């Protein structure tokens, strides 16, 4: 169990802003548009510190350009500590006490689902930035919820494309035992089986999130003698898993396909332990030279004297997409906002993307490549951009997947 | 209070061949004795002689390995304390056992409520139940003036009297008193035992007590049972026991330092 970080909002994250909010309101005139942003700031700091910085960069840019609808944008940050219970609590507080206009955020999939359900009940727009669960827009999708990042389905599809080309027939799987892990494994198995009917899955491990017993887990995978491994763990679980796997030679002579591992937030933590040649989704922050990205990276570097992580991009893009929706709707009325969001094209650090009207999923893509060790740091090499729009099922299939319509 | 008629012929308590061991140590081995209605019987002996073990088997706190305990002809060996109590055995403890979060009156009420089988009513106020009967018992032991005090603040001697009132709440035929005067001043000892003797003779209760104070034993016991190393060493009227050379050797000593003037 994780520690009780209930109402930890004040601590590492948005407390100062939340506290200072009344004075800010006065300083900027009473008309600021208020966004209630809930995220696992303390539970997943590696991703969410950059996320918040990216967010604040975008907000500063929007406000510097005169805001939206002639009003500034202001964000109340709340920490859910990785617990859906706390997220729901904050959502209620943000709407009822802080009187925010809309909700955003969410890192863990279960947290995202909880906020989405709350948003639907309370008829508030919820711009889900990071939670990857497909259920968020499909099986449990609702009118008020939109999601920015490529879902587990999309990322699984991107990875399966590579995995299907491997010779490996016997696969072992390891995934955190909650919504994101379960859904990633489900799609990976389904899609890979479709692409390669000859594969079989010989071992599956589901450590509880944040509690992996890495040595025993590695041994259990090793015992199944797979040709390849599909990994979904991330953060501290990933670090511990990789170290034990390296020592025990689990990855030697085996292909490893791994979701999210190419993101700088997780590669940085691995440092010299970074395994080479894993097929991963990620973000080549140093090498990506599109004009949009360079502009973003320079601004970020200038403001924070640090390179952006993927979290920075997600925060930046979420904020910008909300601003774009507000501008398009011309009002903060949530029903109008929902209408504006459907089919909204918005600028992103990876180029422009769209919130699909059919399932509220954005078409933002991800980078697929291989891990490598360079100067003691993990990097993403041989990468390509996989456009999200290309990794979604056909509209007919989507309609069956999304009962909410 | 209705009581069985005193009868010397039928013993209230008849113990036969009682035995108990703890991991190879024979704490009590084959002890037999009887206690008659209206009589005060003292159980004495050196430390470790088996008095408390004996008492705990009579009260149900311990299960005997062997032997028979008959209460008015009915076997109670191996029954639980609460079952034994329901059959009419009152008990006081060496270290007084009362309910500290209740007043003196409530302590007695508690016993009366339990006696009436009224524990399992969750929605009535307990304070109103059996109040008069509780006060009558307290009057009997001379504690009525202190009825509203907390047991936690009572003097030791008073606590012993409360315990006596509680032990009498189920109109027992047999009263077991483990070291009833331990830790009391001499004057209090006499008062308590005189009170007990009076109640015993008035109501025909049989009383069995253990005691270290030989003054108390020889002043109040109708009969004395001496245990030594788990066995019955001697049994008889107080005066005979006091003179018994065997008892003097293992227990009473020369009498120079510890009473029995």
């Amino acid at each position, binding site marked *: 169990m994780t520690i009780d970080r209930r109402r930890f909002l004040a601590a590492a994250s948005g407390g100062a802003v939340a506290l200072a909010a009344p004075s800010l309101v006065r300083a900027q005139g009473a008309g600021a548009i208020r966004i209630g942003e809930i995220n696992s700031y303390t539970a997943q700091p590696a991703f969410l510190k950059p996320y918040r910085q990216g967010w604040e960069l975008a907000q500063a840019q929007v406000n510097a350009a005169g805001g939206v609808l002639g009003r500034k944008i202001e964000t109340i940050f709340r920490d859910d500590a990785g617990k859906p219970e706390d997220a729901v609590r904050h959502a209620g507080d943000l709407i009822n006490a802080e009187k925010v206009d809309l909700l955003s955020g969410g890192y863990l999939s279960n947290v995202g689902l909880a906020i989405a359900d709350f948003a639907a009940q309370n008829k508030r727009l919820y711009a889900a930035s990071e939670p990857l669960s497909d259920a968020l827009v499909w099986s449990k999708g609702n009118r008020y919820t939109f999601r920015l990042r490529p879902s587990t389905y999309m990322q699984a599809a991107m990875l399966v494309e590579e995995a299907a080309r491997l010779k490996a027939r016997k696969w072992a799987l390891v995934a955190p035992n909650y919504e994101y892990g379960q859904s990633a494994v489900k799609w990976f198995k389904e899609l890979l089986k479709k692409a390669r009917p000859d594969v079989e899955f010989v071992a599956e491990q589901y450590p509880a999130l944040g509690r992996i017993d890495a040595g025993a887990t590695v041994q259990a995978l090793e015992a199944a003698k797979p040709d390849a491994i599909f990994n979904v763990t991330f953060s501290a679980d990933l670090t511990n898993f990789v170290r034990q796997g390296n020592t025990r030679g689990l990855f030697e002579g085996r292909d490893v396909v791994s979701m999210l591992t190419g993101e700088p937030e997780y590669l940085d933590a691995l440092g010299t332990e970074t395994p080479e040649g894993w097929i991963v989704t990620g973000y080549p922050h140093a090498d990506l030279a599109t004009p949009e990205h360079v502009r973003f990276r320079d601004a970020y570097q200038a403001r924070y004297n640090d390179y952006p992580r993927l979290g920075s991009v997600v925060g930046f893009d979420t904020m910008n997409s909300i601003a774009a929706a507000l501008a398009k709707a011309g009002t903060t009325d949530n029903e109008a906002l929902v209408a504006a969001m459907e089919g909204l094209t918005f600028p992103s650090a990876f180029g422009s993307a769209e919130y699909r009207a059919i399932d509220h999923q954005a078409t933002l893509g991800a980078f697929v490549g291989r891990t490598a060790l360079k100067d003691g740091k993990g990097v993403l090499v041989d990468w390509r951009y996989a456009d999200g729009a290309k990794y979604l099922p056909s509209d007919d299939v989507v309609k069956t997947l999304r009962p909410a319509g | 209070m209705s009581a069985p008629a005193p009868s010397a012929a039928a013993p209230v308590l008849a113990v036969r061949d009682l035995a108990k061991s703890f991991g190879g140590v024979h704490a009590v081995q084959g002890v037999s004795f009887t206690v008659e209605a209206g009589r005060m019987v003292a159980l004495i002996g050196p*430390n470790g002689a088996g008095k408390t073990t004996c008492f705990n088997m009579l009260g149900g706190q311990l299960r005997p390995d062997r032997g028979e305990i008959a209460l008015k002809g009915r076997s109670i060996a191996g029954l639980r304390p609460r079952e034994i109590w329901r059959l009419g055995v009152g008990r006081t403890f060496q270290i007084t056992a009362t309910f500290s979060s209740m007043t003196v009156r409530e302590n007695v009420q508690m016993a009366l409520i339990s006696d009436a089988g009224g524990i399992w009513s969750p929605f009535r106020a307990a304070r109103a139940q059996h109040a008069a009967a509780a006060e009558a018992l307290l009057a009997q032991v001379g504690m009525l003036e202190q009825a509203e005090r907390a047991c936690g603040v009572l003097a030791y001697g008073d606590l012993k009297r409360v315990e006596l009132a509680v032990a009498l709440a189920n109109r027992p035929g047999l009263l077991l008193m483990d070291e009833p005067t331990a830790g009391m001043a001499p*004057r209090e000892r006499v008062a308590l035992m005189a009170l007990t003797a009076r109640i015993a003779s008035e109501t025909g209760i049989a009383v069995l007590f253990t005691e270290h104070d030989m003054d108390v034993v020889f002043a109040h016991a109708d009969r004395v049972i001496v245990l030594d190393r788990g066995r019955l060493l001697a049994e008889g009227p107080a005066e005979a026991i006091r003179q018994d050379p065997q008892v003097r050797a293992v227990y009473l000593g020369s009498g120079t330092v510890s009473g029995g003037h």
Partner: protein
Amino acid sequence: MSALLAIAGLDAYYGRAHILQGVGFDMGRGEVLALMGRNGAGKSTTMKAVMGLVPPAGGTIRFDGQRIEGREPFAIARLGIGYVPEERRIFSELTVMENLAVGRRPPREGAPHWTPDRLFALFPNLGRMRDRPGGAMSGGEQQMLTIARTLMGNPRLLLLDEPSEGLAPVIVEAMAATILRLKEEGMSILLSEQNLHFAGNVADRAAIIEKGVIRFTGTMDALKANEAVRTQYLSV
């Protein structure tokens, strides 16, 4: 020569109950003083206050001329006061030898020096059960062990709280003999007692306490002669 132990105006509370109300008496070196009184009169509390186990609310306690009230128990013990509590409180999980080891302190000037061997001479029973856990001993043996354990600290003053309570008469006689032996060694002993016979056998002087106040001090003979005091505070 000043008194070994001089108590004056000692006040102590248990919660809100005023247990000691200005207790005062002196004790000479090599003397055995019996502190007498009924249960709850304040005997044990007086001893605990001397030992620092009950914080005195007022008054002074001098040991060998030195003020000791308010000090911690271990500091008081190190000055040479040994305490044998009423409930014995031996370490039941520890063996006889280990129990003695806990009490061991360096030799002390002006006090007999005790070793396990010397103690086993005094309590032959204990010598036969050196490795027996304290919990597996009879009440009388435990009482002997608790005294032996305290003696290992080589005290100059021994506080014996109700040494005869709850013991069989024969053991009580042995206890009296032990106290007399210790007295021969030059030990000063303060004992609390309800039993006049026992006190009469071992003590030089008596102090009678009643409701936290000292009502009488004098020699044992004076007490025996004073019928009025005996009946008022002690007698049957």
